[in-house]
């Protein structure tokens, strides 16, 4: 049961950008289109799952004093791997995400999960945790990107979805639009969680 619990908590209770309000830099920067949000989310999930796995395997070997340095080396290695793989097999996404791929290294969600969870829990639980949080992050970014893409350019995943006389709100794909959209989503989620009985 606890594997399921660790997996599903990433979808609501600990949904990274909205409930924990962590990892906002990529959340705000790359979500101009649903596809970019999805690509960023998947790259982050890849890094998160493997860094959780390795940190969990090595948790008894790494001395406490150098743990953060060790985690950063592990995380950075997977980020470089993700970057090389994107470059080799999904080049347009690599170009679209630009500097934000190497910046996954400093995404606090990943170091946060390594420090708060994977360094204290067995391998299976850590994998479930990484996958759940990663997919929650991916869904959040895709939804945010989708809303901004629909309102900002009248498209979703590059396909026209709005009526022909729809005038795109240009500011939605710019930085202020990201903050406005994030604010509304945070508010919406707070309303929903207040109506639900506390866990």
């Amino acid at each position, binding site marked *: 049961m606890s594997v399921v619990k660790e997996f599903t908590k990433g979808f609501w209770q600990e949904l990274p950008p909205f409930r924990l309000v962590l990892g906002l830099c990529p959340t705000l920067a790359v979500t101009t289109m649903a596809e970019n949000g999805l690509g960023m989310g998947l790259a982050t999930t890849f890094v998160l799952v493997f860094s959780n796995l390795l940190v969990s395997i090595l948790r008894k070997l790494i001395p406490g004093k150098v743990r953060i340095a060790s985690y950063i*080396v592990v995380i950075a290695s997977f980020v470089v791997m993700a970057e090389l793989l994107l470059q080799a097999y999904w080049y347009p996404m690599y170009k679209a995400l630009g500097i934000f791929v190497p910046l996954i290294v400093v995404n606090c969600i990943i170091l946060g999960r390594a420090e708060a969870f994977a360094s204290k829990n067995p391998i299976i639980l850590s994998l479930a945790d990484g996958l759940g949080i990663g997919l929650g992050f991916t869904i959040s970014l895709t939804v945010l990107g989708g809303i901004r893409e629909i309102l900002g350019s009248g498209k979703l995943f590059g396909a026209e979805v709005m009526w022909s006389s729809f005038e795109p709100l240009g500011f939605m794909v710019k930085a202020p639009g990201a903050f406005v959209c994030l604010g509304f989503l945070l508010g919406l989620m707070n309303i929903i969680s207040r109506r639900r009985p506390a866990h």
Partner: protein
Amino acid sequence: MRDLIKMVVVLLVICTTSGVVLSYVNEATKAPREYQYIKFVQEPSIKAVLSDYDNDPVKERIKLAVGEDEEGNPIEIVVFPAKKGGATQAIAYSAAAKGYHDLIEVMVGVGPEGKLTGISIMTHTETPGLGARIVEPEFTDQFAGLDLDTTKLSAEGGKVDTLSGATFSTVGVITAVGAALEQFPQIKKETF
């Protein structure tokens, strides 16, 4: 003391493993990365500067060594040949020169007599609205049919009109194309 040694050893092992694994991944993804770069950055430009061919210029690309740089390393250029019925009609290759901000990379198509079949700007960081207009067909189209002598500003006896407000960008493109054409006699021997 034992703690210290343990810390050093653990970090050393982690870093070494990371280095080994990454160099393996780097090596393993080298070919697909090169291919993706050609496909998404160079191929659209190659198609724009070559016409009337029935082969796949990207698949039949050849690497040529043209001279050496200051440190004695060979300078290599990749040539994309456009063939029809097995005979080379024209070749495409790239050159770069400094524009107003940074390097402008240009793909040039050259016919057997050393005349340009067309040029296409691959990457640049010129000012939007001013220098960035070098990518527009109104500007690039005037290069078709020019050779080394006529690839100059009209004010200097050539046939290229300056983009108003973007002299540095214009000169950058001319310099890149000129450098490419200067290499042509050497490349010609190996390709046509």
